[in-house]
């Protein structure tokens, strides 16, 4: 049996969440003397907050993908609604498969992947798994890093809406799905932010 590695918590210290200044445990929930951030040994209610935000994201995922994100009106055709998936299919059929892939990965795959990964990490903590902490920490880091790129579809809608205003020839308006989609991206980013990877390592130490 090996001795558990010395962490800030076992040494009776709190590392400031922003500036990483080590403070004594007695300073818990007071402002950090260096940067003013509230000192907490672990992120506040990490599991509860993260569960709530992940569940909210799962609910938002449905309207974000099922409702139209753009409504195109052209002179020749009746108003035409596009969801995220129909945009991907359109690009795939017209030969721009690389753009189809970018949109598919950024808008459909990444948000779902983030939610599934976070659910997996939360379950692993709740069920007390001691399995591969390093890989789970890496999984969290990937989740945190890629989330921002999902925002790309929201920006594409913003650009299309302002650019395609050609009077009666062609006109693009934003659909209700776009609002749900931007809320989804923000929710998943907040969920990743509220998760505390140190809990994975705490569990390893408790079992030793």
């Amino acid at each position, binding site marked *: 049996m090996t001795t558990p590695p010395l962490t800030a918590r076992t040494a009776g210290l709190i590392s400031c969440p922003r500036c*990483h200044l080590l403070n*004594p445990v007695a300073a818990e929930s007071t402002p950090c003397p260096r940067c003013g951030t509230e000192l907490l040994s672990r992120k506040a209610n990490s599991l509860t907050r993260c569960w709530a935000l992940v569940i909210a994201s799962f609910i938002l995922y449905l309207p974000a993908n099922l409702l139209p994100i753009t409504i195109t009106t052209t002179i020749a055709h009746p108003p035409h609604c596009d969801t995220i998936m129909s945009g991907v299919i359109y690009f795939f059929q017209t030969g721009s498969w690389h753009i189809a892939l970018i949109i598919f990965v950024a808008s459909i795959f990444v948000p779902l992947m983030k939610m599934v990964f976070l659910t997996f990490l939360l379950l692993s903590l709740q069920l007390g798994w001691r399995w591969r902490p390093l890989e789970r920490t890496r999984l969290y880091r990937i989740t945190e890093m890629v989330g921002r790129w999902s925002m790309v579809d929201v920006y594409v809608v913003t650009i299309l*809406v302002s650019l395609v205003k050609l009077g009666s020839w062609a006109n693009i*308006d934003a659909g209700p799905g776009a609002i749900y989609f*931007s809320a989804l991206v923000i929710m998943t980013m907040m969920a990743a932010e509220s998760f505390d990877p140190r809990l994975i390592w705490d569990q390893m130490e408790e079992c030793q």
Partner: protein
Amino acid sequence: MTHITSIIACHDCDLLQKNPPPSALCLPSLGSHTVTSARWTTAVVIECPRCGAILRRTQKNSLDRTIAWLIAGLILYFVAVSFPFLALQSHGIANETALISGIIILYKHKMASMAAVVLATCLILPLYTMISLLYILLSIKLNRYLPGVSRLFAWTLRLRPWGMMEVYLLAILISMVKLTKLARIIPGPALYSFIALTFVLAAASISLDNHVAWDFFKPRQVLTSAKGKP
């Protein structure tokens, strides 16, 4: 009360380890730390030996480099924001768009929440980050403790992931491809500054060593106790 700054806890796994002083970072090996130094840059990255988190990333002349990149970024930002980045021409009608015009149209179409998200993530937060970082770094450069710098730095680090201008660049490129079949697309002057800005902001965030700033801001209790002693 004294604070230990020679030891640091990993932010991802809480492991305690040595926080090397800036002078030691130029050395090739640092005991238990994993130090990666790419041959083509002067950048040094220190990783946690247990979980591999990046504890510290520093460069030679980190402060000067970051200030330079930020000034370049501010200039490019104003070009990127104030000029149209794309124009569309079809059936004799031309229409051009800048960053702000899309936000205004969303707002007019009763999509204020989405307009607010785009406004915050693409316009306000990148500008806020650049200006506050310049203020903080110039304060360190001038060796003068300007009011509120340490608290401002904490907030800037917290809000930094929400500034997403580089994602907007990808969105511009996707819209260009999307519209090529519909009409003629004319790239505007702001497009090139958007591209340059993305690289400049990435360079600024790589060259910034947070600990240079944190080492400069002494904890308040230490300052008061030092004053109390004769």
